[in-house]
């Protein structure tokens, strides 16, 4: 939530997309490859090419937390901490290879990351602390044991997501199969989405059953699953051979396939579904982003969905240079704008922004001067961040809120044109104190609805206001003291 937006010029606040380049976030000596804002836009998690994950504060754009063991400090601090504060020492190590995917849980307390080292890690941001920021309605008990998790796999993990708000399950997209993996976080049980025992055929039509059988028997034919999108209980998986499968996870013990289609001959790199589950964007290696409408048919008696229909709508491509798209991101809510980073782009290109209602190119963000890869679009701050492929810096675009000079005095007014001053009839009359008081009293008595307690449900931009229900990262005072002592030495 941001109350300040209520006081700014509404024409500046309510822009559909960021227009102004606002500089870079320097992550030196690390190279950023993935970056993701938390659901409230308060923190930015940055995954780096050496496996480091850092968290920056979005207000100050300063580093506030380094996950795992910082090699630069030889783990010295960690051991000091646990002895002094009796907090559980977190033994989580960094990824040893580049971070492949990074996602926040809806409460902002956990981060799930997948690395090229075939590991999936779940980070509990509260684990090194025993005192928490209390400006939150979310009760957090002091951790008795570290709730970070580390899962190792034999094959590459492309993407990992939390399933639903309780953070009990994670959905992983692993190579070696076209069927994603579901991971029970507490117990560490890994199972494939579909195995013959748990499949329910009862409501499915013949076509689906045949497809399922074929998919389980000839997994190779469908390629590896390489991309995934999870919105509420709908999971969409894209494979390296251009297949798209839609699963319904309403009942986690019996996952059902509700739609499938072959989209193209090449690998599907990213999938995005709009928040309202209406539009689907598919980025594939054949240099095209396809936009589809997706509709779901409800089951008659049981919970969940019966069928998903996908209807092709628009194509996005770079007509002149025929560039591939590295990554893409969607504006919030109904997904009115799509942004994508071009592969191998030069100084003149960078990020492309389209209006999704008519597939027209709106803007090209050129300021970066290098090829960009991962993109994240934060709806709260209306900010786009993209990581540079060569420099590893993060480039930001945001909405510029100009200073309101007229607000420096209570009765100033900004005017666009020269206005002739006409003295009003009563302008320099002496105020009648009693009359003013009476007017004020009347005004006060007319107001009988004052809400001083509850927060607005949404902010000015229409984003859900969950700031009182999300985790705030505590400050590690031990680090401050440690550093100060180091300097004094």
């Amino acid at each position, binding site marked *: 939530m941001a109350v300040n937006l209520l*006081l700014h010029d509404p024409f500046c606040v309510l822009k559909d997309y960021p227009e102004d380049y606002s500089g870079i976030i320097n992550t030196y000596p690390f190279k950023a490859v993935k970056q993701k804002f938390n659901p409230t836009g308060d923190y930015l998690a940055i995954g780096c090419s050496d496996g480091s994950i850092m968290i920056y504060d979005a207000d100050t754009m300063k580093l506030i937390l380094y996950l795992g063991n910082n090699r630069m400090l030889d783990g010295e601090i960690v051991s000091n901490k646990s002895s002094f504060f009796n907090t559980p020492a977190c033994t989580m190590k960094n990824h040893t290879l580049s971070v492949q995917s990074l996602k926040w849980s809806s409460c902002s307390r956990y981060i799930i990351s997948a690395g090229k080292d075939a590991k999936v890690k779940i980070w509990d941001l509260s684990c090194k602390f025993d*005192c928490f920021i209390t400006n939150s309605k979310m009760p957090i008990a002091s951790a008795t044991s570290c709730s970070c998790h580390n899962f190792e796999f034999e094959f590459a993990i492309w993407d990992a997501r939390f399933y639903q708000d309780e953070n009990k399950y994670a959905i992983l997209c692993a190579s070696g199969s076209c069927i994603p993996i579901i991971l029970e976080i507490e117990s560490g049980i890994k199972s494939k989405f579909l195995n013959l025992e748990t499949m329910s055929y009862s409501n499915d039509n013949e076509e689906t059953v045949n497809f399922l059988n074929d998919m389980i028997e000839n997994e190779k034919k469908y390629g590896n699953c390489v991309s995934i999108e999870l919105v509420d209980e709908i999971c969409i998986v894209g494979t390296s051979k251009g297949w798209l499968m839609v699963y319904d996870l309403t009942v986690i013990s019996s996952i059902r396939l509700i739609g499938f289609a072959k989209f193209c001959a090449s690998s599907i790199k990213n999938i995005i579904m709009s928040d309202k589950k209406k539009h689907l964007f598919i980025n594939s290696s054949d240099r095209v982003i396809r936009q589809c409408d997706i509709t779901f048919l409800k089951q008659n008696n049981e919970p969940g969905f019966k069928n998903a229909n996908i209807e092709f709508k628009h194509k996005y491509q770079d007509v002149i240079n025929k560039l591939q798209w590295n990554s893409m991101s969607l504006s919030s809510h109904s997904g009115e704008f799509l942004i994508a980073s071009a592969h191998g782009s030069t100084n003149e290109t960078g990020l492309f922004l389209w209006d999704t209602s008519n597939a027209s190119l709106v803007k090209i963000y050129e300021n970066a001067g290098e090829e960009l890869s991962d993109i994240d679009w934060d709806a709260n701050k209306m900010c786009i961040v993209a990581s540079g492929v060569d420099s590893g810096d993060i480039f930001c675009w945001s909405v510029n809120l100009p200073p309101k000079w007229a607000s420096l005095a209570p009765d100033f007014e900004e005017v666009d044109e020269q206005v002739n001053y006409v003295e009003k009839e009563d302008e320099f009359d002496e105020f009648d104190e009693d009359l003013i008081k009476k007017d004020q009293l009347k005004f006060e008595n007319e107001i009988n609805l004052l809400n001083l307690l509850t927060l607005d449900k949404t902010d000015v931009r229409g984003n859900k206001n969950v*700031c009182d229900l999300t985790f705030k990262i505590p400050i590690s005072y031990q680090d401050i003291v440690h550093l100060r002592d180091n300097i004094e030495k």
Partner: protein
Amino acid sequence: MKLKLSAQLDFESTSSAITLALFAPKHSNEFKLCVSINSSQILLVENDPYLKKKISEHRIIDTDHHKGINDIQISCDGQVVASASDDSTIELTHLNLGKLSTCISHTAPVTAIKFSSKGNILFSGSLDENLKSWNLSASGILTQESINNELLITGPLKTMSAHSDCIISLDVPFFDSSILATGSYDGLIRIFDTSNGNCLKTLTYDKDWANDGHVRPIVKVSFSVNGKYLLVKSLDGVVKLWDYLQGRVVRTFHDEEKQLPINNHITGLDFLYSGETEDSKVYVVNGTQNGRLEIFDVMTKNKVVDVEISKNSVSNVKVMGSDKIYCLDTDNRLFLYTVEM
């Protein structure tokens, strides 16, 4: 509604204690209360909400301040006590680790401080008419290079020239520190955007505010818990509730028959919420310069309680939960009143 005196702590002090800080999060039993007992020492009352222990049983925090302490704040995690002093500095003391940092940059006594809702920024207002924000994170953790640049608090993040007279009070909303309100002796209330330091709104009581003779200094500003209203007290003791978005006063709490001559005592003010839901009742607790504690119903503007608690002025009032009121008077006494609905 009735008030009952439940406890009283008298402490010795060379000067008048004027500051009181309270840390009592809703979802835990933690309780911390800080009172400045002289120019360099802070009394810390820990886990004793009913003030049963004696003064000598409580911990005293020593600071390096050599002039009086104007404001104390406890950080949102209850670990750090920040104190603003007449010697123009702010000190941050960790309860277990000792002194963390001293913020030096103001050129005149620091009068008001406040932590942001995420706990990583400290805002300060001063008699030098400036507003400053300080970053409180260990940015230097990463590399040796950055240690030299941006360690701890070496200087303020941002300085905003805020007013044309001293800033006496400031506040940020509990859940959202994107805005900050200041109250100054120049009679203006200003709302700032904390992300870029721009002024977003200026409010004033007086129609002819620029005319020097009529300025009513502002001594206290306080946001409602949802950050939508601003409670403001001027030096003449009049309390007003502003709908700052509309720029209008929606409630005035003032007893005209008891108007006192204006002196320079700053008195306490706080909200009292009977619950957390939309239809819970909200009250305003106001301390006066003649030692009275008044409670107004915000909806009806009726004065529901008016008791004399001291011979001197009530310098600070803090409400905990829906039934406990801690107040401090200039005779160095700390009272705990419980509210009986």
